[in-house]
């Protein structure tokens, strides 16, 4: 780099740039959080949904599935599973409940978690709530997730 571009100038770009763009990120974050109830389906977060989220976390579902595209890519996307399963929480519960304990020979299979009926309902309600989040362009692109 040329002598006319000094270390002092480089340092100022670093400090100035870092501070400016961090504050911009903070500002945008404030706006995003304030306007979030318009899109985040939070009016439907019941105690049951919260319990479902906890179960989702305590069984590390994200270690195989993706939810709104984030997670692992070993098993189907679940951000729209409620729609994919014909808007039926019973179908979701039935699927989780019927997984064979020892898997399916040669194929990927979801473990049998032995959830109680109450837990199954909470998980299904959580997935229904997640499906209700208004994502841009109604992501995922189609019903297959």
């Amino acid at each position, binding site marked *: 780099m040329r002598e006319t571009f000094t270390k002092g100038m480089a340092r100022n770009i670093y400090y100035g740039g870092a501070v400016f763009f961090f504050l911009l990120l903070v500002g945008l974050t404030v706006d995003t959080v304030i306007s979030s109830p318009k899109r985040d389906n939070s009016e439907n977060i019941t105690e049951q949904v919260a319990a479902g989220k906890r179960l989702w976390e305590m069984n590390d579902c994200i270690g195989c599935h993706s939810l709104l595209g984030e997670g692992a890519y070993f098993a189907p996307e679940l951000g729209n599973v409620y729609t994919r399963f014909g808007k039926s929480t019973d179908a979701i519960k039935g699927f989780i409940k019927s997984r064979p304990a020892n898997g399916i020979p040669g194929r990927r299979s979801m473990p049998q978690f032995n959830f109680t009926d109450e837990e199954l309902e909470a998980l299904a309600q959580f997935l229904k709530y997640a499906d209700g*989040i208004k994502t841009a362009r109604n992501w995922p692109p189609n019903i297959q997730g």
Partner: protein
Amino acid sequence: MKYKSQNVAKLYFIAAIGLFIGQILFGVTMGLQYVWGDFLFPALPFNVARMVHTNLLIVWLLFGFMGSAYYLVPEESERELYAPWLAKLMFWIFLIAGAATIVGYLLLSYSDLAKLTMNDLLPTMGREFLEQPTITKLGIVVVALAFLFNIGMTILTGRKTVVTLVLLTGLTGLAVFFLFSFYNPDNLFLDKYFWWWVVHLWVEGVWELIMASILAFVLIKITGVDREMVEKWLYIIIAMTLITGLVGTGHHFFWIGSPDYWQWLGSVFSALEPIPFFMMTLFAFNVVNKRRREHPNKAATLWALGTAVMAFLGAGVWGFLHTLAPVNFYTHGTQITAAHGHMAFYGAYVMVVLTMISYSMPIMRGRTANNEKSQTLEMWSFWLMTVSMVFITLFLTGAGILQVYLQRFSDSPLPFMVTQEKIALFYWLRELAGLVFLIGLLLYVYSFFAKGREVGEIKAVPEAA
């Protein structure tokens, strides 16, 4: 080695390499599970293997960063480490806590681990990469703060260089942004939004500062170039990292329920994120070309140049490939993401830690550079690991393009599992490349013990005629 306390880095590097081996063993296991669905099921479900694979990566990279800091900070600051005993104590605490957590993942069901560690008191578990029990997370905070204190006191009471100040900024950011891992609201959108404040602001923010400063240190040592020039580059590289990367966080906000402006902001700023990586490549080659000394450690030079190139390809090129919102609409959460993740982590962070190890380990073992045989083997392991990682990335990219087409782009989209079966060939090829990577890694470990002809000392480069 100029200061005795630098030697503590050796412990950290040995642990890092040990955990690296574990990470890759779980990696090839998962790769097999992709095509042999019930391999080790239900004893080792995929989600557990994945958690071990990714958590080991994070932990060994942290060991690598800490070891690097303990090695380079005394030398830069021209004084002994503020508290070498604290560095040793924290090493054992971190290693034992890390090992206990991994053993917990493997021996208990994840939900039992959550109950045992009383996740209900402060639920933080079960989110990607942040699967650690809350108590482990608290342990990480304690270790990080003690480490930061030790490094900070050494830097602030010694000679201050741009390298150490950038490193300190990066390490402070690492500790501060990790605190967002304790925020886990019931609101899924807010949970996801602030989860990225850990994940993105780590790997596409402050970790890049750490990486750039480690690379700058090694390049100064190997090439003997004017520090002034290196420091100018370093400032401008990290300036570009933060100018593009902070608002670039927006590329993760496209499809989780954020306002539409993130589509534009995320696309534009993250499209610029390759710039600092490209500058790092220019910087590394420039500095090596202008070297004033011939360092006998050829392997370390190879790793340093390799880091700059592979970080640009993995993080820069493969990141750009799917970062524009209209493209990401189709590729989000597919094997394209996996392809990018593999080469970016390897190219940027794995390789920079291996660069530092390559440079400093021989010195800590009492020589300027390893013997010829050892260096030759190390360079073979460099090529085996790097080329196989390129192929892992290419095969996953092939799988990803097909997945996107079959499942999302075509007029009659197929279900996820049907698509997965159709692209199995690419997963087999990826697994083969993964096995080659493992061979490269084993060769790397072996290279530390190889005996051979000793190499000479550092020589000055003769002035050009």
